């Protein structure tokens, strides 16, 4: 199936019975969470990338919120990345990602739910083109909590869990943030997070779904023009 993003006026490719489909956008961090889960659990799936600026009508019928990711199979539709990820983890038993201990599960949810405090300043920094030092400090302050809570190799303990995947996509984009701000994530302030990032970059699932800083940069630049190029990198061998 082509990876090119489908836009308004496009025909929805039919979904075969028994097959699982992910509606996604290659550079969407929320959809990336679900791709990480699918890959981690070796769930067979097909991807339909969607043009989120010129949304097809069939897409809005599936999710009136008009957002990716959406998971669809056998007339069942689930959206919202956290809901999709939990759903997949419950439906497919291989390589479970939800902690078996219910208290640990709850504490990981608390960290997951609180992560918007990191993503909000993250986007503010990007939008300010890295010019605003106060915004960058706001972002670092929000990260302090996660640095403090990371007492083991992964947020999931000795092995990664749903929470690691839940957070990863924004850390993957720190490279492009560093290019924009001229400042890499300070290792002395964030030693545990820095080590965790190196560890995550070695994970096969992360390597499979990852984009380089150059690709992220190319997409971000196109986004800033007002006409995002959702297919950036597809024609060339980047």
């Amino acid at each position, binding site marked *: 199936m082509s990876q090119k993003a489908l836009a308004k006026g496009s025909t929805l490719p039919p979904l075969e019975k028994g097959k699982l489909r992910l509606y996604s956008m290659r550079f969407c961090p929320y959809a990336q969470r679900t791709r990480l889960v699918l890959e981690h659990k070796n769930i067979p799936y097909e991807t339909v990338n969607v043009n989120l600026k010129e949304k097809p009508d069939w897409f809005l019928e599936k999710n009136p919120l008009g957002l990716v990711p959406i998971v669809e199979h056998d007339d069942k539709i689930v*959206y*919202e990345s956290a*809901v999709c990820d*939990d759903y997949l983890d419950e*439906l497919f038993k291989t390589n479970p990602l939800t902690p078996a201990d219910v*208290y640990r599960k*709850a504490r990981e949810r*608390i960290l997951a*739910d609180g992560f918007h405090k990191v993503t909000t300043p993250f986007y503010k920094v990007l939008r300010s083109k890295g010019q605003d030092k106060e915004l960058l400090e706001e972002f670092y302050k929000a990260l302090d909590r996660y640095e403090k809570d990371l007492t083991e190799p992964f947020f999931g303990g000795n092995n990664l869990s749903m929470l690691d995947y839940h957070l990863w996509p924004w850390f993957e984009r720190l490279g492009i943030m560093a290019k924009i701000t001229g400042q890499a994530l300070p290792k002395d302030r964030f030693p545990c997070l820095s080590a965790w990032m190196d560890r995550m970059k070695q994970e096969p699932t992360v390597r499979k779904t990852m984009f380089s800083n150059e690709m992220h940069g190319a997409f971000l630049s196109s986004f800033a023009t007002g006409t995002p190029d959702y297919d950036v990198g597809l024609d060339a061998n980047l």
Partner: protein
Amino acid sequence: MSEKAYSKGSSCPSGQGKLRLYSMRFCPYSERVRLVLAHKDIDYDTININLYSKPEWYLEKNERGAVPTVEQPDGRLVYDSVVASEYLDDFFMQNRLTPDDPYDKACGKLLLEKFGKVQSAQYKAGFGSKGQDKDAIQDMWVALDFFESQLKGDFFGGNNIKMADLMMWPWFERLSPTMELTNEKFPMDRFPKLQAWVERMHEQPAVKKAALDPRIHVGYSRTHFDGNPDVDHGL
């Protein structure tokens, strides 16, 4: 144990070896957890927190300073309302509220996501505008249309009450007080299924245990409108 709220300058009451809920009597989010505790017959103590003058010690329990927080006798802490409700349902196995089927469970969560529109419209209609915002009331009805269409069985959970029913209940409990405060009427013809569900919910033991009389809700809201919220109103 007294229901009076703890304020700034107070000391944290010592534990009694029981599960503890940090709450506020009028907070709909706290009510969610009270409903779950009631439904599952869990024994617990309540410590009400004055959200308008928070005790310093409470920030050690929940750094967001919000209610509800659930505390196990050994000091383990869980918040906020949805995480705490799911945690209690996982930890205490009786009268299970989470659907067994993963898709039903996902659908319940998506219902809650959509419910945000009802919650914000109700807040705007009541506290946000001291009962003056008529547009907010209309927004609430429009948001409720979706829920009217989604109610296929006796409960949002199907034949039996499930997590989604309890998570949404507190805002339906506050419908009649909101009507009184805004001088509006609930359009029963527009919401026959929801009306029937509300009546069914009133009969649920958990709701009977955890709900507050509409008049007390109205009284509390009025103290709020006057600029002096009395979290101990009605005690």
